[in-house]
């Protein structure tokens, strides 16, 4: 075998090893990015519609009950008894519910800034999709590592690798 042939073999081998490590690095980078995108989906604020619905539900709960009617009945009762000097919280809430809705609703709208809200259904759908994609990346990484190990190449495994990928059967990875 000539020197040129040997050099080509060495170059081919080095290139093969580099490709393997580069691919692994690339997959690992994509895993980090996917995890980041999952965190972003998890932490994204609720949609404006959902936030306003929550506000309305809360105001409705706070003003619920028959406090207003009961108080009004006091004044029309033939045997009048003056109400206590402290105004019940429900009455205050009922009296200012419109203003309260505008005030908190305005603050909610402002709080979004450039952020986009996401509905609960969309969040669940996007999370499921991102987690599926993440698992696919973990499978790909595991397949590369097993191939490297099969070739006798020592690869440092990630401490936080997904057990579903690490314990996956070789047949499935193929």
């Amino acid at each position, binding site marked *: 075998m000539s020197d040129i042939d040997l050099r080509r073999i060495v170059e081919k081998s080095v290139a093969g090893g580099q490709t393997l490590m580069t691919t692994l690095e690339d997959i690992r980078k994509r895993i980090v990015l996917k995890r980041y995108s999952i965190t972003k989906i998890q932490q994204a604020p609720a949609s404006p519609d959902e936030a306003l619905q929550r506000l309305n539900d809360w105001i409705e709960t706070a003003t619920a009950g028959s406090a207003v009617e009961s108080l009004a009945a006091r004044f029309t009762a033939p045997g009048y008894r003056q109400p206590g000097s402290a105004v019940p919280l429900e009455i205050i809430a009922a009296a200012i519910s419109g203003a309260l809705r505008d005030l908190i609703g305005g603050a909610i709208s402002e709080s979004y800034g450039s952020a986009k809200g996401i509905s609960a259904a969309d969040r669940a759908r996007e999370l499921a999709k991102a987690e599926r994609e993440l698992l696919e990346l973990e499978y790909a990484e595991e397949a590369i590592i097993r191939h490297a190990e099969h070739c006798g190449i020592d690869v440092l495994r990630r*401490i936080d690798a997904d057990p579903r990928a690490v314990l996956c059967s070789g047949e499935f990875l193929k």
Partner: protein
Amino acid sequence: MTIDLSRLTVLGTISARENAALEQARATLDVELSASKEVRRQLLAEQRRDGTASERGNIRRRIEQLRTKQGEIDQRIEEQEASIELLQERATAAHRLRKTCEAWAARHVQNGGAQ
């Protein structure tokens, strides 16, 4: 997805291998530390020696040799300590991954077989 529980054995082997490498490196460091201690002892002994005028030249040369030797050993100790730090990381990673996978398998895989 199919789970292959024999992979736990492989992870155990990897963990044991990483641990063995770490122990080996620590043993090597111990040898170097002992050598360093011995050279330091010899150096002190030479520095305390009070020889005749003709012997002083030899003592100075001997001290120089021992200092050079100590420098070399210190360098190796430094390299060995860095290497141990890396090996420790690898051993910890392999151990934790094995533990995580064992815990996951215990939680998710019933009947003790592949799913």
